[in-house]
């Protein structure tokens, strides 16, 4: 008698746990869809940013040796911007490309690759950590962003550096070549493992290009460079030619490829959807130190 009662209780508990678990998971899914709860979930980002900065100080990200360089460093995200303007520049080996530096600066700049190369470069062998989870080590050579910003001269209200890129991510329309946009879909370029519910691209929709932003602490960090060489060769198109950002103490999505323009701002809230980057506008953290 006793035995069957305790068995009944056990079965009730197990079934209850199972049902409770399913309810909980469904409930969690619905919770995380609500915007206000999303703000709660985002509390940790603030905590991590506020705690990591003082702990990090000026510390450098680890640097490695030539022997550590990954032989097959796979390119991720866009590997060939479909935009006609970019394709035209690529055909001339970016001879006509100029890096625009504007916004809250005293002297807006228009720098060619040759001019960027004439700035005393920094070479670093560092580990690229993708938010998806993998890591690859590469050797980067480029102009320290600090040098470029100092030449432009920052105005006192300057707080963030926004990097505008060439690659259209969504809303492919008249300014991208048709062939390229269809191959972008199938290669799963920018959606890789990260975001499955990409907005549907309509041909009358405004093109949404990749962009990113960092604050001045990261902009002036010695390892923050505008890289034009990778592994002792000119930066190839799949990895962001002619110029990609390196921000070595953060995750890979911050390191914008195909940089066209650097805009110094006080706030990024009226750029894109206001979260400071293409992926940030789609739910990722602005501070990608973790």
């Amino acid at each position, binding site marked *: 008698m*006793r035995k069957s009662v305790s068995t009944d*209780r*056990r079965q009730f*508990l*197990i079934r209850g746990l199972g049902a409770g678990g*399913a309810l*909980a*998971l469904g409930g*969690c*899914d619905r919770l*995380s869809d609500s915007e206000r709860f*999303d703000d*709660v*979930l*985002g*509390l*940790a*980002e603030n*905590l*991590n940013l506020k705690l*990591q900065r003082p*702990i*990090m*100080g000026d*510390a*450098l*990200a*680890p640097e*490695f040796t030539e022997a*550590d360089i*990954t032989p*097959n460093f*796979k390119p991720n995200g866009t590997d060939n911007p479909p935009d006609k303007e970019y394709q035209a520049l690529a055909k001339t080996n970016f001879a006509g490309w100029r890096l625009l530096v504007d916004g809250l600066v005293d002297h807006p700049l228009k720098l060619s690759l040759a001019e960027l190369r004439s700035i005393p470069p920094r070479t670093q062998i560092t*580990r690229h*950590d*993708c*938010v*998806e*989870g*993998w*890591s*690859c*080590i590469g050797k980067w050579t480029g102009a320290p962003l600090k040098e470029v910003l100092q030449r432009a001269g920052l105005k006192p209200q300057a707080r963030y550096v926004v990097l505008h890129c060439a690659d259209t991510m969504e809303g492919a329309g008249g300014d991208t070549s048709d062939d390229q946009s269809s191959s972008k879909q199938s290669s799963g370029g920018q959606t890789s*493992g*990260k*975001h*499955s*519910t990409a907005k549907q691209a309509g041909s009358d929709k405004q093109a949404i290009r990749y962009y990113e932003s960092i604050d001045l602490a990261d902009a002036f960090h010695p390892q923050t460079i505008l890289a034009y060489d990778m592994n002792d060769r000119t930066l190839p198109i799949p990895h962001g030619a002619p110029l990609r950002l390196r921000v*070595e*103490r*953060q*995750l890979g999505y911050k390191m914008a490829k195909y940089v066209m323009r650097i805009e110094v701002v006080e706030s990024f809230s009226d750029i894109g959807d206001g979260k400071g980057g293409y*992926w940030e506008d*789609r*739910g*990722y*953290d602005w501070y*990608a*130190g*973790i």
Partner: protein
Amino acid sequence: MPVQEAIEVNRRHWIHRHSLVVRITHWIAALSIAVLLMSGLQIFNAHPALYWGKQSDFGNPILAMKSEGNDDGPSKGVTTVFGRAFGTTGLFGVSTGADGEMEERGFPRWITLPGDQDLAKGRRWHFLFAWLLFLAGLIYLVHGFISRHVWRDLMPTGDDIRDIPHSIVEHARLNFPKGDKARVYNVLQKLSYLIVVIFLVPALVLAGMTMSPGLDAAFPQLLTLFGGRQTARTIHFLAASGLVLFIVVHVVMVLVSGVWNNLRSMINGRFDIAESRKTYAQKRKH
């Protein structure tokens, strides 16, 4: 004589089993770990492969979940472990999506948080509850050492160690300690709880921190400790698996050794050591 024993053992003998700090941190940890495991699998799904060392050697993963398919879509799930392939269709590599169609993903949707592939949300759940677990764990450990809970209740004695083989046999027989012996954790409990709070969870936290490029700059010692970020990621996954194993055994043991008594003691602290004796008396009758 049997009748007398029956009347005697029906009287409950309450003891105060778990302190308030232990109880509160236990449930916070339980909730946090549930969220961390499910959101962790979501994060893993963004790149469902594990490597060893400083970087990812894509050609030689330790473990990888892949899909094989045709023009109609993914149809077969394949998981490789050290190169050996296993068919895992429906579970790993390929499983049913929300629309009922087979989709390519690492772990299936019924075990990830969120259910859909959503790395951004998964990371948000994960990092919020990682902080919750860290703070609860810190409070538990600080209190545990100050109150001597760790030293007195968790640390096995010499007698405990010598009792291990016997305890294993008794556990297998579902014979649990009775009466005064039930006042303290048995040796298997002590060892498993110690392993979790002193080793598994701290390893998870440290390995998690090592995956942060920011903290790698602040504490390069983390990379030395683990031998590389990808090793840390794999160890994070392995330690999580160890934790899952512990949880399964723990929950089963809670269920079969007097579930209401166990649950009650972890809620209001009161544990009936006479109830165990009641079981014993029952068995005696047979």
